[in-house]
């Protein structure tokens, strides 16, 4: 047991080191890149006063460690600076959008995770049948498609040819839960299609891998049904990779929403990030980038810890 907790502590320590490096890179990254940020944003004609004012606004005139500590202190108080583009506090800009993004990700995950595990189980159960081949072909195709293609095909089919759902997923605070669900039906379907493909393929592969073991043959020789063997003998031993791929895909859901949000003009954090990058609105990019990165790191940490817990053999690495 001590080995297990030591391993988990090591993973947590690594996650914190990563978060520290990320926060340093994000807050001081301007310094490591060639060129003068103030000049490249304000243009060559900018006066010396304008450049100095811009640098003071971003704190570029202060030494590195002071900047980092001030930025971190502000972060703790949820004071993320002011947007360069429209002079609103970044925290206000992010607040509502963060909850919108989480709503989208949570709904997509709630549908995708059970669906993909079930499909993976069925594909392993009916291995080499037309059903298995159909599911495998479909998922292989969705993996190779860029997200925006999946999204636009869905729009063309379900918003234009058959006007069932809106092509723009606009949600406002005034809408109730069901209206919101209807509004985000298409972005959710896009995310579900992409995520299901990944989880389902790995679930199937993990199960089929275990199904080749001698103890499964033993169970078969005892005359057990295939469904029983898969659920009670194979599934527990393939839980570790399945949990791992699920959590990694949840991390993808939070980060990968950027493109999907842009396609559906969804008022979420991803769209804000993409917008702010093209406007070079640095404070907003830093704040939303940090939120995305932190979520990703923490979910990956969760994946590591959970898969160790699910597999006793991983608790004693050789």
């Amino acid at each position, binding site marked *: 047991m001590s080995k297990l907790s030591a391993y988990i502590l090591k993973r947590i320590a690594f996650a914190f080191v*990563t978060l520290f490096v990320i926060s340093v890179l994000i807050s001081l990254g301007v310094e490591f890149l060639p060129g003068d940020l103030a000049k490249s944003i304000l243009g060559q004609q900018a006066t010396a006063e304008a450049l100095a004012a811009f640098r003071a606004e971003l704190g570029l005139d202060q030494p590195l460690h002071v900047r980092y500590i001030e930025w971190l202190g502000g972060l703790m108080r949820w004071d993320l600076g002011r947007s360069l583009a429209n002079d609103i506090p970044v925290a206000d800009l992010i607040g509502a959008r963060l909850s919108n993004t989480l709503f989208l990700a949570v709904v997509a995950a709630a549908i995708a995770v059970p669906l993909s595990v079930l499909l993976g189980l069925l594909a392993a159960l009916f291995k080499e049948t037309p059903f298995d081949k159909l599911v495998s072909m479909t998922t292989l*195709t969705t993996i190779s498609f860029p997200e*925006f293609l999946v999204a636009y095909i869905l729009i063309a089919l379900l*918003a234009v040819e058959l006007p069932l759902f809106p092509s723009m997923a606009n949600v406002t605070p005034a809408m109730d839960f069901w209206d919101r669900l209807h509004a985000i039906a298409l972005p959710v379907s896009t995310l579900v299609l992409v995520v299901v493909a990944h989880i389902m393929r790995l679930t199937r592969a993990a199960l089929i891998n275990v199904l080749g073991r001698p103890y499964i043959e033993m169970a078969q020789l005892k005359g057990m049904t295939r469904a029983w063997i898969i659920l009670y003998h194979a599934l527990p031993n393939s839980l570790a990779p399945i949990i791992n791929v699920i959590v990694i895909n949840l*991390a993808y859901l939070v980060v990968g929403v950027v493109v999907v949000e842009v396609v559906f003009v969804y008022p979420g954090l991803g769209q804000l*990030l993409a917008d*702010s990058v093209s406007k070079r609105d640095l404070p907003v990019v830093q704040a939303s980038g940090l939120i995305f990165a932190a979520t990703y*790191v923490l979910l990956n940490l969760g994946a590591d810890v959970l898969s160790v817990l699910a597999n006793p053999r991983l608790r004693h690495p050789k």
Partner: protein
Amino acid sequence: MLSSLLRQIRKAPWSARLGFLIIAINLLAFAFAPQLAPFEETEIIGGVWEPGFWAADCSEEALSLRGPCWSQLNHSRVDGKAWLGTDHLGRDLLSRMLYGARNSISIALIITALSFFIGMTLGFLAATMHGWVDQLVSRTVDVMMAFPTLIFALIVLSVAGTSTPVLIIVIALLDSTRVFRLSRAVALDIEATEYVEVARLRGERLSWLMWREILPNTLPPLIAEFGLRFCFVFLFISALSFLGLGLQPPTADWGSMVKENAGAITFGVYTALVPAFAIAFVTIGVNMVADWFLRKAAGLRDEY
């Protein structure tokens, strides 16, 4: 060389042959875009989003439904016809698709090549030198891989601006972490063999060990990985272009073309789907070939 390749293709399963066909078509477009394209890359030839060959029907009914028919397009050249219709500025979509193949594929190839150069050099170096070099590079790569790629790229691009050289270097660096992992793992295997030890005892230089002893035996998995990394980079650069942060207009590039024409989809004009499907086909094609190559060469990849 070519005839043996052809013989191999004939023996390959249908999926790999389909992949080769897709790659061949795109290589043709890549090489001969200016000769094949009926119009110039940025030449405006007609109205906005005019239909292509499917609108050859010029009856009253069709005209009222779809607007001008194919033969009525205002072409600046008599011999040219807008087979796939026109885009959001009235440029020929087919010509832009051909030039786009050239731009999108070449930038993805350059990035993948650079990423392999960085990743393989570091990976072989880490595997042959061991010790602190290995530790330093491996731990740096661990931290970099814990960072979501798209977010990293977006943050760097917001600071450094979206010029093409910046784009190439940023994506190549991010992608080289995965190449590093694979090449280090494969090289460690080879490094443990007797003939490398013999070369070491012979007193060969480090570069000799890396490129003359280890490289030849690590080639098959690395070549297959090149295909897979190319797919990833290709999709990644398309996504960035789609977000307006990749190649900048008026350069024809498939990702940007999707973005530019996407507004019309809600009106039932599916111009944007053409470049989007092209991106998907290239990815699927390269994937199929890489997959076949891996199975054939090493059998490294299992069911997944």
